[in-house]
């Protein structure tokens, strides 16, 4: 067993363990942190596959941006996890049964003689040390997969439209500021000059007895 295989299994075990913990820990903050660990280890596996661009992007985008945002939300909302876990024990036997049956079937099929190396196309050859993964990815993405790339962009647009359509509410009682109007104000709009004829008499009146 080469070092690479050992490292792969180490990381794979951490991924499986932390992904399992994401759905089993009680505290949502811990769950989010375990998810961060999952992403980190996944990016290490990408590195093993010599896909350094994907590895870096995974850390930057998911760990750096998405999960931080997620943690913010989890910390700000008071999520009560008890009702979410209510049916867990009840449905566990059925879920476990189906899962185990599927697992046995898949293991049975995959460990048969059909899944030999010869049944699969040859693995891609290792690349040289100065090979730029990022450059190749860019070439493939914007040349060979241009059509799919454009559709993915449209899907993101649909996500924006849907998110806004489902969450934005116009509330008539909300008070808005209009900065242009505020700046445009004239002295006459704000101040009204009044003359109070008996001002001196009012202030001179003694008030002690009335209060």
């Amino acid at each position, binding site marked *: 067993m080469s070092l690479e295989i050992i490292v792969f299994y180490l990381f794979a075990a951490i991924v499986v363990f932390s992904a399992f913990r994401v759905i089993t820990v009680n505290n949502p903050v811990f769950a989010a942190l375990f998810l961060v660990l999952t992403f980190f280890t996944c990016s290490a596996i990408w590195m093993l596959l010599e896909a350094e661009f994907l590895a870096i992007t995974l850390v930057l985008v998911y760990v750096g941006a998405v999960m931080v945002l997620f943690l913010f939300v989890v910390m700000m909302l008071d999520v009560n996890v008890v009702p979410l876990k209510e049916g867990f024990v009840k449905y566990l036997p059925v879920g476990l049964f189906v899962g185990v049956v599927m697992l046995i079937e898949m293991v049975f*099929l*995959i460990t*048969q003689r*059909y*899944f030999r190396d*010869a*049944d*699969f*196309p040859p693995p891609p050859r290792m690349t040289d040390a100065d090979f730029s993964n990022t450059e190749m990815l860019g070439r493939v993405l914007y*040349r*060979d*997969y*241009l*059509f*799919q790339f454009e*559709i*993915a962009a*449209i*899907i993101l*647009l*649909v*996500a924006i*439209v*849907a998110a806004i*359509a*489902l969450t934005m509410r116009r509330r008539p009682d909300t008070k808005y500021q209009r900065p242009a109007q505020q700046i445009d104000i004239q002295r006459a709009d704000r101040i009204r000059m009044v003359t109070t004829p008996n001002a001196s008499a009012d202030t001179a009146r003694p008030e002690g007895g009335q209060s």
Partner: protein
Amino acid sequence: MDSLSIAAPEVFLLTATCIVLVASLFTKANSHTVYWLSQASLVVTLLFAFGQTRAEPVVAYVGAYGIDNMSSTLKVWLIVVAIGVLLYSRDYLTGRRIARGEYFVLALFAISGMMIMVSSKHLLSVYLGLELLALSQYAMVALARDDADASEAAMKYFVLGALASGMLLYGMSMVYGATGSLELSGIRDAVVVGGAEGSVPARFGLTFLIVGIAFKLGAVPFHMWVPDVYEGAPTPVAMFIATAPKIAAFAMLIRLLVDALPALNSDWQAMLAILAALSVVVGNLVAIAQTNIKRMLAYSTISNVGFLLLGIVGATPEGYSAAMFYAITYAFTTLAAFGVLLALSRGTREDGSPFDAVMLDDLAGLARRNGLLAAVMMLAMISLAGVPPMVGFYAKLAVLRAVVDAGYTWLALIAVAMSVAGAFYYLRVIKLMYFDEPVVTTEIDTAGDVSAGLAINGLAVVVLGIFPSFIMAACLAAFA
């Protein structure tokens, strides 16, 4: 042809959708500007798609996208059905708390997704087209934000749909691993070279592909979402989900099974035979017990999907043509049925909430309230039941002939027996409309263009049943 003009229908429609999206921000809530802009963009897209029906088959974008006889015919019908969907939805959306601009924009995006699915020559574009369609649909179901039923339906649809997409992707990754190609033609060649013995990994993936496809079609036992989504979704959205996407799902089935994995036909024939038999039985029997007409139409969809699969079970070109004919005719017949429901959903209930025709009893005595609506509904129902000379009869005949020719006589027997049972609930609707006393006696007035659309739709159900070759010729050419 350069690659831009090959994808002209999609390119135009997506550009026009962006314009409609911006226009919807600047129009008043109740004006019809967005509606007419959407219809205009669909009509122009229809012209582009129609222009391609005579074009030579060609593949562009490094094997991602291509046009052939099947794709161009299906695109034309997709757009025709979509134009009908928008026409019937318009008056329903006015006066209800549903974002109209977003409804039309999301519908246009969904139509683009379907067109991409239909034209895909690559696993990745099949999947992306499907997601574009599915994401738009999830959002459309949830558009009635104040309605708890709609939110529940949207949630169910989203969770189950995501699961099905996961299954489909898992199958695709297995097929890719087994063949080393994402292009459908590459997969076909690799599986043929590998032979039956070497293709077990591909068959492993095929199983998951079929689960994903069956879910998207709504075939038993992956049908659980269909009645709940139809019932919970606003009626125009239910109409949208019930019609055009079935044509696209048919195309996906053909692309993944017939175009990519024809060498594994003995495997998928058996799986599809089980799905078809179960769908026909469950769909027709459970529909009898429904009192909600949207749920009834949902089970009708399930049984019709079973018939559609019957055509493909035989794995013959005649069978594929029959299934294609079935998908197209099913879409516009169901469109007519939903169109009548939407035309009925006018006015308000006693408590002031908008009236929705959802229960079977709401149709009672319809013939005396509006003769045209009752006639169109009757034509749609007897066509779905498979009575000659309606188009539904010819569609059922074609798939049954294909399945008998392929040697699956038992399957044809089940299907015929079940469609006799199914005739009960279709005919019950006609009895309610023509022989029962109306609860409300007020006349129903519909807008002129909606009446005209419904009349044409009803006539098409009859005329195309008498002259099926108008569509059948194109369907046969698609698999010649």
